[in-house]
């Protein structure tokens, strides 16, 4: 199987898939809510019409802007709004419906949120990744709400026999100011459903100064109470009558295969009912399962115990020699030789040759595992040529496609119910675990839950890549940087789709390599080859992590080399306020967004640096053993700058007294959730900087749980993380929040460590490098 033959078919990567016009079914039927709902009618495709363009239309299945798909009003006035994106902790399941409620003048306390199942023909693209939900859906959701409002107003005007211009919706009712008459949304629902859906282009959106909810941050997430009482339902919480519990032993080496197995001891374990082979696909095979041996039992504990008793012989295959220490040396060697040139301005070779001083930094970042608290898990019930899935998936539409394809049944026969996700971070964009459940359920003829243990999760992840970033910066006599060569070497995510993919895909090059925002006369970015020997996938912020680590560490190194303040050096390199042009780059990737709406704007980049320096007290005096570090990075079309204060004691123990982050993410829905994302990004950034390392020996992952792949715990978390959001006007297009907080953290920390100790760390994780 070679899915990348047509790269345009990759989901969520380059998003160049034509919007398909597929007829849609009625909202009543597919929402699965009891009757009494209106605004339900056969639906036609309608495109968003916005003041600014986004890449939403280029995503698989594009965008659907239709109140009849997303809004239902019951006669008692209850408004049900569909959340079609997956909730993994960003708050999207609350924020997008809140936008609809805002525009339609619904009272949030009378709104219920219904989670869409995977159906992109109906809802538009559902890939919850790439920090895209708000930037792609703010305007469409406003239009959906405004359409519903217009239909309610039209229905009321007709009832009263007055012109529609004389009535307006206010807080869950429509009022006719002149006569003082008013009708609740519930009373108008049936009539409103008969009104034509207004033309999107003619819709009048609310004036942002009249917003009740947007931009305020005082609405809590809809699942808050359920979470605190144990009633929130995650993928792992799905229970069906007659459901069996399964765990799978998978090949320990990527691309390995099952040779033979002996299940006799496993079958003796109390509660174990069946042991069977699970189909695997030859690597690389996109998101298809790895195969192996499944143990099926009456509960998960029995299945795990049964698996422990299996005797299995594997054929490790071609990746059986993958060794992280040797591979690092290979990457370093590649980074020291010329590679594929992906951006070129001026003459970097000549400029480096003529430079007064050349500073070279080589930065290493190992593989990382996602370790979301909820491991991959899925329930499937496959019978009579139909499949129903319950799973915590970031890509419900893609899951539906892949399950249908794997089982050889039409997509219409596959229902994907999207549960809450106990964390995602990109891991749950890949639906291998849902396909495993579908295969097993089909084989045993009953519903089955496939539970990944933590060990499975760590050893069989779609890992963050491993990379060497080498930067050579040339300075003239005055200390001005005149040359910049950045070589980035790392196995590509495309290798998960196609054998022999050895160069970064455009979407990877666009994450902090070719989009360097520095004003330097001679710039060259290169991408030498790197072959993958493990499954590589998206990890929160993706290639931005190693690139920001390298580029922003180099800024610190240059500041030191020229005896300058880090922040001053950074602002000098960014240079004048301007729009960065990437004329020398073939196919520059801008997170799937048009550069017109989302340029690389150095004025905004400078502003977050200046804001964080101001609010975070850059230059303040700190106690002995403490240091301040700063870094800035544009990713997911947002601008983020971070200052970390670090404290290192005389034994080399590192603590973080304070973190300040400034974010410019354009206009926004919920500042309180932005704050929580940035607080969390500091923890994730600190985790990867201190501990993050997945290593291979003999083709096998050497780690398996939180003991050997630690993440930051509360006793080592920053004492305080302050978040400063750049206020912008409501016309500024919204940009990403979920991911961009992560990349600047590690280099800010590393620069702080240098300030505190004079020690320059160029290989992550920090591990024991500070111990004395």
């Amino acid at each position, binding site marked *: 199987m070679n899915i990348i033959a047509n790269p345009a078919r990759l989901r969520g990567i380059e998003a160049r898939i034509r919007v398909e016009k597929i007829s849609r079914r009625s909202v009543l039927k597919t929402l699965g809510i009891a009757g009494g709902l209106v605004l339900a009618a056969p639906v036609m495709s309608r495109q968003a019409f916005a003041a600014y363009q986004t890449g939403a239309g280029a995503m698989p299945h594009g965008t659907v802007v239709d109140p009849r798909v997303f809004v239902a009003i019951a006669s008692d006035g209850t408004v049900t709004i569909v959340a079609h994106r997956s909730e993994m902790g960003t708050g999207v399941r609350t924020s997008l419906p809140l936008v609809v409620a805002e525009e339609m003048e619904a009272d949030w306390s009378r709104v219920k949120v219904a989670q869409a199942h995977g159906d992109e023909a109906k809802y538009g693209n559902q890939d919850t990744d790439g920090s895209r939900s708000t930037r792609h859906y703010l305007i469409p959701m406003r239009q959906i709400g405004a359409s519903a409002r217009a239909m309610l107003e039209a229905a009321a005007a007709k009832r009263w026999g007055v012109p529609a211009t004389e009535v307006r919706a206010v807080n869950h009712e429509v009022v006719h100011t002149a006569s003082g008459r008013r009708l609740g949304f519930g009373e108008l629902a049936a009539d409103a459903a008969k009104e034509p859906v207004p033309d999107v282009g003619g819709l009048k959106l609310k004036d942002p100064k009249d917003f009740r909810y947007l931009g305020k941050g005082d609405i809590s997430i809809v699942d808050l*109470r359920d979470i605190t009482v*144990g009633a929130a339902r995650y993928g792992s919480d799905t229970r069906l009558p007659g459901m069996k519990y399964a765990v799978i032993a998978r090949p320990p080496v990527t691309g390995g295969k099952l040779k033979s197995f002996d299940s006799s001891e496993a079958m003796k374990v109390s509660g174990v009912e069946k042991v069977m082979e699970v189909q695997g696909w030859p690597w690389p095979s996109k998101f298809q399962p790895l195969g192996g041996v499944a143990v099926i039992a009456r509960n998960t504990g029995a299945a795990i115990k049964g698996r422990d008793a299996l005797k299995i012989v594997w054929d490790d295959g071609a990746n059986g020699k993958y060794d992280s220490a040797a591979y690092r040396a290979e990457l370093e060697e590649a980074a020291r030789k010329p590679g594929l040139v992906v951006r070129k301005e001026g003459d970097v070779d000549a400029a480096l040759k003529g430079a007064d001083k050349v500073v070279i930094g080589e930065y290493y970042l190992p593989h990382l595992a996602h370790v979301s608290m909820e491991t991959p898990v899925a329930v499937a019930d496959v019978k009579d040529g139909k499949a129903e899935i319950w799973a915590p998936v970031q890509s419900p539409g893609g899951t539906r496609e892949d399950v249908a394809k794997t089982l050889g049944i039409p997509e219409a026969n596959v229902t994907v119910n999207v549960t809450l996700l106990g*964390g995602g971070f990109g891991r749950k964009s890949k639906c291998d675990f849902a396909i495993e459940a579908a295969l097993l359920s089909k084989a045993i003829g009953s519903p089955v839950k496939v539970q990944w243990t*933590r060990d499975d999760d760590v050893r069989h992840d779609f890992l963050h890549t491993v990379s060497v970033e080498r930067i050579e910066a040339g300075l003239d006599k005055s200390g001005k940087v005149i040359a910049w060569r950045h070589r980035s070497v790392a196995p590509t995510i495309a290798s998960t789709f196609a054998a022999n993919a050895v160069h970064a895909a455009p979407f990877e090059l666009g994450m902090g390599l070719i989009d360097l925002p520095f004003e330097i006369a001679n710039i060259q970015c290169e991408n030498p080859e790197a072959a993958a020997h493990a499954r590589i996938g998206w990890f929160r912020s993706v290639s931005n992590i190693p690139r920001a680590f390298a580029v922003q560490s180099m800024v610190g190194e240059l500041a030191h080399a020229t005896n300058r303040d880090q922040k001053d050096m950074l602002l000098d390199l960014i240079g004048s306020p301007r729009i960065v042009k990437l004329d020398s780059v073939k196919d520059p990737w801008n997170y799937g967004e048009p550069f017109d709406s989302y340029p690389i704007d150095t004025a905004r980049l400078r502003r977050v640096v200046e804001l964080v320096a101001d609010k975070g007290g850059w230059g303040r005096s700190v106690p002995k053993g403490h240091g301040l570090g700063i870094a800035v990075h544009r990713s997911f079309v947002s601008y983020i700058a971070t200052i970390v204060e670090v404290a290192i004691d005389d034994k080399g123990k590192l603590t973080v007294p304070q973190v300040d982050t400034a974010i410019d993410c354009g206009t926004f829905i919920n500042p309180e959730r932005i704050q929580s994302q940035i607080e969390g990004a500091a*923890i994730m950034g600190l985790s990867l900087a201190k501990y993050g390392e997945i290593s291979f020996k003999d083709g096998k992952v050497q780690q398996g*749980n*939180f003991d050997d792949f630690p993440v930051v715990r*509360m006793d080592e978390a920053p004492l305080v993380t302050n978040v400063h959001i750049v206020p912008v006007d409501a016309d500024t297009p919204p940009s990403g929040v979920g991911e961009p907080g992560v990349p600047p953290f590690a280099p800010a920390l590393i620069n702080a460590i240098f300030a505190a100790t004079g020690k320059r760390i160029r290989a992550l994780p920090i591990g024991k490098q500070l111990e004395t």
Partner: protein
Amino acid sequence: MIKMKINGQERNWDGDPDLSLLWFLRDEIGLTGTKYGCGQALCGSCTVIVDKQAVRSCITSVSDVVDREITTIEGLHPTGDHAVQKAWRQVNVPQCGYCQAGQIMQAAALLTENPKPSHDQIREAMSGNICRCGCYQRIENAIHLASTGV
């Protein structure tokens, strides 16, 4: 036959006595509020309270809790309004929420033992509970709020 009391209710088990309490709760009696996170007492997602003490249910076998009183997140408070639960909501602690039942049970046990924990005591007591979303700052604030009302 193993007997135990879970959220005030008698429960019996006549299967494998080594079955962990976690999978008994989740798979055999459907109390899914208690979560699996690591299976080795490394993350605290599966924390329940056994006779007032926070316990990792993933490494506690059913035979370890014979005749003991077990409280899960579902039984922490009849209306879900334990001081810790209320504080959690007031501070908007959760992101994905998955680890929060374990965090809340750990925090509730801490406050039973030490009604006014200091900053360092909170950080130490909660350091066995991992939150991959990174809600630690708010967890600490919520525990302060639950213990002091401020």
